[in-house]
């Protein structure tokens, strides 16, 4: 029986008679008490368990909350860092939500719109679009560019926009996807205005000459190619004029390269003035310019050409004053025509160049029109160039010697070695036909060296020939030999190899060579003089004939140019010049040599006026070695005969 029921019965149940029926009744009541107890216990137990479970869960949740707070803190830090990272970027970045509103933007993005962030994020999608369209230069074009974005949310966009404030932006737009879910779109805009400007500048530089700002060769070729296509289509004609300044080098050498550059700028300005609309003037080399003229019909083209040529030459008509000095600079030009002369840009320029060279050959300061014979000449020249290379390689040169005679005694006092190119079967080519080419080809020093080598070799042979053993021998130097620093070194090496008595060697150089770089010449001559080499100034009177260098330089001989000597009988001026040169030479203590002595009268005149040495056909033309040997022997015997006769008298 339930304890509570038992207690109630004990305390309050006096007189209750427990019959079997009553016992059953009391059992039910007891059971009800037990059930109530069990239910209560079950409930309490459940409550306790639930409470424990909930406390447990609560503890876990608190831990999770702490973790979440930690994550939240980290996330906040991360967001702050990301924001700072984004703000540090010079690229404008903004993120749109599905409604087209900007929900996130960095500082550059705010600067892009010239608005505060708070202002921008408060705008509706429509307002944002209006704001963007108001910023771009061509809104319709921009809308067309971004149209794919409206058709497909997954579209990725990339392009360029120009804004009203004259800036260029490169943009990227990518969808923001959470898995497959589209949640918005991010845009990045990079200001590439400076890059574009830089690109434009680089492109400009690639096509223009930095000094004069004129189109360069690349620009010229491309323009010419385009013009050729247009001209072919329009049946139009063109002229390409290749211009090269004459004697520009003088300016650089005299007043320096900076002044030379300024001079080129001045020339550019002047040339630009003669251009018509549509003409192209390009600078393609140091002092080389190309002018492209266009015309529609032949007649007009030639008229235009004449006018252009006249104007071109007129630019150079007056002398130029550079750094207070007066310079006469002219131009040589060649013209090639499209389509008659050539149909390709490079060919046109090349042919105009050929014509220009012809102008140079014809004495400069003129314009020559290309014709096919020029091309043939050029081809001949190319042929010669190859031949010359071959000749040097195979030493196809021979020396002829022209005696130099003491005017007073008639003795052989020296010989001048003169080079001949023996092309085949004894056929000879004279220096005036190939020395210029050799100089242009940069081969002249090698030829001079070949001459020296031969001279050294022959002199060795002449040791056994009494009439020549002690006769000095002279060799012509080119002005370009002085520009070749290696040359003088080679000279000494060659002489060393042959154990050559350098006191028997003379070098003849022209006034032009002296004038080019006086200081350099002085140094070279000084080195030569240290080895007792004699120096002669050749063709004196035809060049600059400055007294100053005669004073400055340690020279031994003055050679009067043959043009004066040959003219002695006809021209009083020549007489005066020859007399003057002899006087100068004598007065400066130099030995004077007269070239071109052809008659006894010339010899007599020279002798009478104190000239020391004569050279010319009167005595002997330049002859091969064997003839020289014979000549020397004959001369000696002749002189000995004279002495005998005088003695007999």
């Amino acid at each position, binding site marked *: 029986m339930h304890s509570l029921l038992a207690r109630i019965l004990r305390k309050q149940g006096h007189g209750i008679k427990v019959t079997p029926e009553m016992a059953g009744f009391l059992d039910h009541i007891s*059971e*009800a008490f037990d*059930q109530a107890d069990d239910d209560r*216990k079950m409930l309490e137990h*459940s409550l306790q*368990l639930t409470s424990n*479970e909930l406390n447990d*869960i609560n503890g876990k949740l608190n831990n999770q909350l702490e973790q979440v707070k930690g994550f939240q803190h980290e996330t906040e830090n991360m967001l702050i860092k990301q924001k700072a990272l984004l703000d540090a970027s010079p690229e404008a970045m903004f993120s749109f939500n599905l409604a087209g509103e900007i929900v996130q933007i960095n500082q550059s993005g705010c600067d892009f719109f010239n608005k505060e962030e708070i202002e921008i994020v408060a705008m509706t999608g429509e307002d944002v679009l209006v704001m963007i369209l108001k910023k771009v230069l061509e809104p319709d074009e921009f809308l067309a560019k971004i149209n794919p974005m409206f058709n497909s949310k997954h579209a990725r966009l990339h392009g360029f926009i120009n804004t009203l404030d004259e800036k260029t932006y490169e943009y990227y737009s990518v969808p923001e996807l959470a898995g497959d879910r589209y949640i918005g779109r991010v845009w990045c805009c990079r200001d590439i205005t400076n890059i574009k400007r830089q690109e434009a500048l680089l492109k400009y530089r690639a096509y223009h000459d930095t000094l004069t700002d004129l189109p360069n060769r690349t620009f010229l070729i491309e323009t010419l190619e385009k013009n050729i296509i247009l001209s072919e289509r329009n049946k139009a004609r063109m002229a390409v004029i290749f211009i090269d300044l004459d004697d520009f080098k003088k300016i650089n050498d005299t007043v320096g390269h900076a002044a030379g550059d300024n001079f080129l700028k001045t020339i550019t300005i002047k040339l630009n003035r003669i251009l018509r609309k549509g003409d192209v003037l390009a600078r393609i080399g140091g002092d080389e310019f190309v002018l492209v003229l266009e015309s529609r019909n032949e007649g007009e083209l030639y008229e235009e050409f004449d006018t252009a040529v006249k104007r071109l030459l007129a630019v150079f008509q007056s002398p130029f004053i550079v750094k207070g000095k007066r310079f006469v600079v002219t131009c040589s030009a060649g013209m090639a025509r499209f389509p008659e002369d050539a149909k390709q840009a490079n060919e046109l320029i090349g042919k105009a160049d050929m014509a220009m060279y012809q102008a140079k050959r014809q004495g400069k300061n003129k314009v020559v029109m290309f014709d096919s014979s020029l091309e043939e000449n050029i081809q001949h020249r190319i042929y010669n160039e190859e031949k010359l290379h071959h000749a040097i390689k195979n030493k196809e040169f021979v020396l002829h010697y022209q005696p130099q005679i003491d005017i007073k005694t008639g003795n052989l006092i020296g010989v001048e070695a003169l080079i001949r190119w023996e092309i085949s079967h004894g056929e000879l080519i004279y220096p005036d036909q190939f020395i210029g080419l050799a100089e242009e080809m940069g081969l002249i020093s090698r030829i001079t060296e070949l001459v020296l080598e031969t001279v050294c070799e022959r002199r060795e042979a002449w040791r056994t020939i009494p009439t020549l053993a002690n006769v000095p021998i002279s060799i012509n130097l080119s002005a370009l030999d002085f520009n070749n620093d290696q040359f003088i070194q080679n000279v000494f090496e060659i002489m060393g190899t042959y154990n050559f008595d350098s006191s028997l060697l003379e070098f003849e150089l022209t006034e032009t060579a002296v004038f080019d770089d006086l200081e350099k010449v002085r140094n070279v001559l000084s080195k030569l003089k240290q080895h007792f080499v004699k120096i002669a100034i050749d063709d004196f009177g035809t060049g600059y004939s400055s007294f100053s260098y005669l004073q400055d330089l340690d020279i031994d001989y003055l050679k009067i140019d043959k043009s004066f000597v040959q003219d002695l009988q006809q021209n009083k001026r020549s007489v005066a010049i020859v007399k003057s040169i002899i006087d100068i030479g004598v007065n400066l203590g130099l030995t004077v040599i007269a070239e071109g002595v052809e008659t006894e009268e010339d010899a007599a005149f020279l002798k009478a006026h104190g000239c020391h040495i004569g050279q010319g056909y009167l005595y002997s033309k330049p002859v091969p070695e064997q003839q020289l040997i014979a000549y020397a022997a004959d001369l000696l015997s002749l002189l000995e005969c004279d002495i005998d006769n005088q003695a007999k008298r």
Partner: protein
Amino acid sequence: MKNTQYIYQADQWDKPLQLDIEVRLVLLFGCKTFSQNNHCIEQVRAAFPNAEIIGCTSSGDIAGNCLYDESLIVTAIEFSTTKIRIAWRSVIGDDITNVCNELAAELPKDELKYALVLSDGHSINGSELVSALVAALPEQTILTGGLAGDGMRFKETTVWYNDKSEQGRVLVCGLYGEDLVIGHGTKGGWDPFGPVRTVTKSKANCLYQLDGKPALTLYKDYLGVYAEQLPASAMRFPLLLTDEKNNSTEVIRTILEINEAEESMMFAGDIPEGAKAQLMRANFDRLIDGAEMAAMQASAEINASQHSLVLLISCLGRRVVLNQRTEEELEAVVEELGTEHCYCGFYSYGEIAPLTYGEKSTLHNQTMTITIIAERNA
């Protein structure tokens, strides 16, 4: 409609069985002992020679507002116009969907207003049975019923059909007729408590883990000393399931069996993985209120005549908890609906009915499920 009720208990009828050749349907609910007691059944058959006799074993029999044990409740029904049709099938070794389709096929679909299903309550997955039957039967047919019980033993249940009483059987009794009126109501009255848990491991109606821990251990903890009485004692803590994948429908599930080796528990209906589960506990007053509300719901849509049959199928779990007070829920129902009706029914291992009018039937646990069967103008 005329209903006559007889109660057999302690080897005797409460009153002599009267021969009635008009009776077309006899409902039997009783103790498993009677499934082997052919003598009793033969008496019933003799009294109602023209009737279909159907029924099942129970975990307590209901007649009027009284609860009987070790008894047999016989309710003889004489319909005015209603026609009946019975189908029954074994589900052992057969696919339940096939069985339900065959059952439904035996019942003419036209004017099938109501189907009473009585099923084995031990070897059948009630959830699957109900959904298969709902699918097989016409949409307008109201389906109610219950799973047979076996006292507190959970060992063997049988379904009666005439002279047969077999395990693993499902019986469907179809009622036809223009005058037939059906009311139904289902209420629990249990209160969820404690934390909401997640079903982390389950298979069909077998639950292994809640929140990654063995569900059986949890039940044992909560049951304390009553753990020894598992699985019956687990009726004290039915499970409220909320399946978010299935429109967050809430169902209450009671335990049928445990497997100590697997630490698993078998429920009367499916326990889907991922569903939310919360233990429920009884509140006497709320359980009794629940029964009353089920009665109100059952009568709300019909204007029941005096001779209605009220079929009460209540869950064994309620009985376990209410214990001595079990009859209070029966009294509450009779008080609500009136004494003029014939009340019969049983305590079951699972109740079947729509949750509300117009919905499809589902399997319930821990509810009082009431079906009112009446005929207009009767």
